């Protein structure tokens, strides 16, 4: 599997650390309530299809990326800097 890092270009997936679903971008407020925090921490979709998740280019530039990919075809559609992602 290869991911095109916006800083470094296409790289082998061994350079990246996988974190999990990109919903981690939307951190609830401190007082958002138990349910919102439960969803944020634990509840994840398991899609057969398109998904977005967070990868860290640990053995590269050190950028956290939002990677859009397909869990069925394994196509990697896009990787963008998490820093610039819409929240």
């Amino acid at each position, binding site marked *: *599997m*290869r991911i095109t890092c916006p800083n470094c270009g*296409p790289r*082998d997936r061994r350079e990246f*650390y996988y*974190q999990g679903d990109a919903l*981690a*971008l939307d*951190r*609830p*407020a*401190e*007082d*958002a309530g*138990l349910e919102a*925090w439960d969803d*944020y*921490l634990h509840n994840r979709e398991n899609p057969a299809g398109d998904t977005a998740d*967070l990868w*860290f280019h*640990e053995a590269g530039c*050190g*950028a*956290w990326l939002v990677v859009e990919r397909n869990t069925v075809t*394994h*196509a*990697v559609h896009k990787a963008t*800097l*998490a*820093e*610039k992602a819409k929240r």
Partner: protein
Amino acid sequence: MRLQTPEKTVTFTFDGRRIKAVPGEPLSAALLANGIKLVARSFKYHRPRGVMSAGSEEQNALVTVGHGAQAEPNVRATTLEVSEGLEVSSQNAWPSLRYDALAVNDLVSPFLAAGFYYKTFMWPRSFWEKLYEPVIRRAAGLGGLSGETNPDTYEKAFAFCDVLVIGAGPAGLMAALTAGRAGADVIIADEDTEMGGRLLREREQIDGKDARAWVADALAELDALPNVRCMTRTTVTGAYDQGTYGALERLAGARAADKPVECFWRIVAKRAILCAGALERPIAFPNNDRPGIMMASAVRAYVNRWGVAPGKAVAVFGNNDDAHRTAHDLAEVGIKVAAVIDSRDDAKVSGDYPLYTGAQVIATKGRHGLKSITIRHNGGTRTIQADCLAMSGGWNPTVHLTCHMNGRPTWREEIASFVPTPDSIPGMVTAGACNGTFSTVACLTEGADVAADVARDLGLKPQTTVPAADDAAYAITPLWAVPGKGRKWIDFQNDVHVKDIRLAAQENFRSVEHMKRYTTQGMAPDQGKSSNVVALAVLADATGRGIPETGTTTFRPPYVPVSIAAMGAGSQGKGFAPERFTTSHQASIACDAPMIEAGLWYRPSYFPQKGETHWRQSCDREVGYVRNAVGVCDVSTLGKIDIQGPDAAALLDFVYTNMFSTLKVGRVRYGLMLREDGHVMDDGTTARLGAQHFVMTTTTAAAGLVMRHLEFVLQVLRPDLDAKIISVTEQWAQFAVAGPQARALLNTVLDQPLDDETWPFMACGAVDVAGVRGRLFRISFSGEHAYEVAVPARYGESLFRMLVAQAEVMGGGPYGMEALNVLRIEKGFITHAEIHGRTTAFDIGMGRMVSAKKDCIGKAAAARPGLSGEMRQQLVGLRAKSPDHGLSAGAHLFAKDAAETRVNSQGYVTSACFSPTLQTHLALGFVENGRARHGEVIKLRDHLRDITEEVEVCDPVFFDPTGGRARG
């Protein structure tokens, strides 16, 4: 028998027998040339088997190469190059290949049909390990491993290209020429020792010259192109995501200590062209597995390419035109063609030899080598003397790689086989025989056309010129299995015959995937390369479904067996776990300090002195240094993260539970870091060197984790913060100087002496250490008056030596991890033994460190019900009631009179030591509602080490609870 006398020969051994061969020819050719037909015993029934093919699809002729630790089992004789001194032995036979005791399996074969194990070895359960497993393992199998460590070297490598051409037959060579001439960066890989594929094995003309001469010209042109790389002996084994291909390269020549045996490649290609050719399939007829019965194309290959006659009188049995080429080529070199048996009624005469049309082989004779065949013809039977039978059931395009990403091949009726479904692998196209295109000129044309399309896609301007070549038609009328009695083998490697597959269907294993697992057809090293299509045709017939509906099993990587040693090359020993050394490493080794691993780091355990016979003596002495004089310890392995920027303090406020924006410049603060789920992630001290400049320390083990976490916070959660971080762990060598004499010791190396006023507890700042700019932190992990002094790493070793020399003058010296651990347990300081991922700030008694004035990572989740309160197991100290009785980490804690069972466990011990300071055994642990139970005596029970002790629950700070020593 050889057709010509070779110019040069080498000698190798087969089961100890010395045999002459042509250097570089495959072992199979050398064996056939010397009249050796019996090469191996089959997997299950131990039937005598010989060479069947001339390629990596070989099912029968598996051998063991070398001996001892370097022995390699299950090597295909067809791909093993013969060299001087090569040592080959047969496998799965005892006492010898010729007289194999377990051939008795073949006599009782009616009882050993498919599913036999599943039905028989069901009960009693206790028999599994003692009887069934060992017996089955012994009786069935291929070659064995030595069990010793393999001393051979393996390599891995990466390559990148525009176009990867897989296979160098007519289509592949034409594709590489077309893409290469257009300027594309091309890699062409072929598993053979030479490129040319089928053209090396056939007698035909291309461009008005011998096909082999055309191949030589094509290779010369490719070699001359700087943008083309030719890789022989390289099998592309798998197609993976985003244009990544795995490939196994076998390195040429004999094994040598300094040379890798194999190299596993990961090739990344913008486009790939699969020109993998096709594999000939057998026909299932009774006893079609005798040594001497081979694939028709393999017979041609041995004759045409290696000048070896596989027999003196060869019969040919086929259902297609291509089989006749074998008869033709044999006649051409003067080998007797005993008969051509064509199952088609309309087969045409192809040469001057007996031809039987509409005929079938119904029996064979010759246990250790074929002697005769019996055919059914015109309603009667006839026996023909032959020592070799060349069979051809037609050709299966090598579609395997196109199926590696879930692709399913498409059935094509006119060639009675499967072809690749387009776009099965993104970026890959197919050409030539693997695409079901069989004539030479059609292969050349398709290779050129497909490569031209690919080149245009890449923005190049290709030109195509295709040489004139053979355009023989390929006509086939399927014949899968000859009707009648007898065992008709389909999967030779797994000993599966027609009846096994019918039995699977009868017992309702009708799906092709179920049939495969029930019969084991298509398993093992060859993965059904030759047998799959025949097997599913038989299954389709048994179930009354058509072949396309029956479908194929899933072809998975790797295409050929890949040794784990090659795939894991470089990842053994130090390649798997590199070593990180501190600057004091050599000095510690010189003191005979045993080193222990801390992550990838190595740290001294203790520094033994003359007369000390037990590590505890050294450890107790070193603890005494710190409590009574001064000790020196290398703490450089702790993570050091430099944090700068206008929002550096805000970042720390967000990642630590406590407040850092209020920390004054020149001061250090202890910080506690949570995970977002409310559990403790790490702890450490952070020093404020300037208004916008902090240095954070992490624990040794969590340095990488915390770095990643901080980047996560900065980039993912709080991109609004203007701060930058970088790891400086390796840039600074840092030493703890601890004990009542710490200041006096430091004053011997510092340019400006220290005093309490300017350097109070938790102060930090720049200092000059023997003329070198360094940093000093007045912090303590031992509870004593202590400092950590840091210098650029290049001065580390010399500072360590200076500090140790001075400490020794003052009645102290270096201390290691054991003493460090005792010192911190005496003070109740936590490590990852306590913050092991399941404890909260509340559990470790730091609940009040979670600031109410700000949000921080983990704050909301830590407030969830269940993460604080009386039912939580809380950090406590544990003091042995009998001071000289040892306590053990990992032990569980029980109420004094409770039974020591799991349900009664109230907690556990995380750290334990003997405290020379307090002259008793101590421990830290977690106990339910522990903070309210100080003074209570409970029971410690370690079932593993059989330790039962009474312990008193107490405050975790055993020594100097007011902390006066560190401040004084």
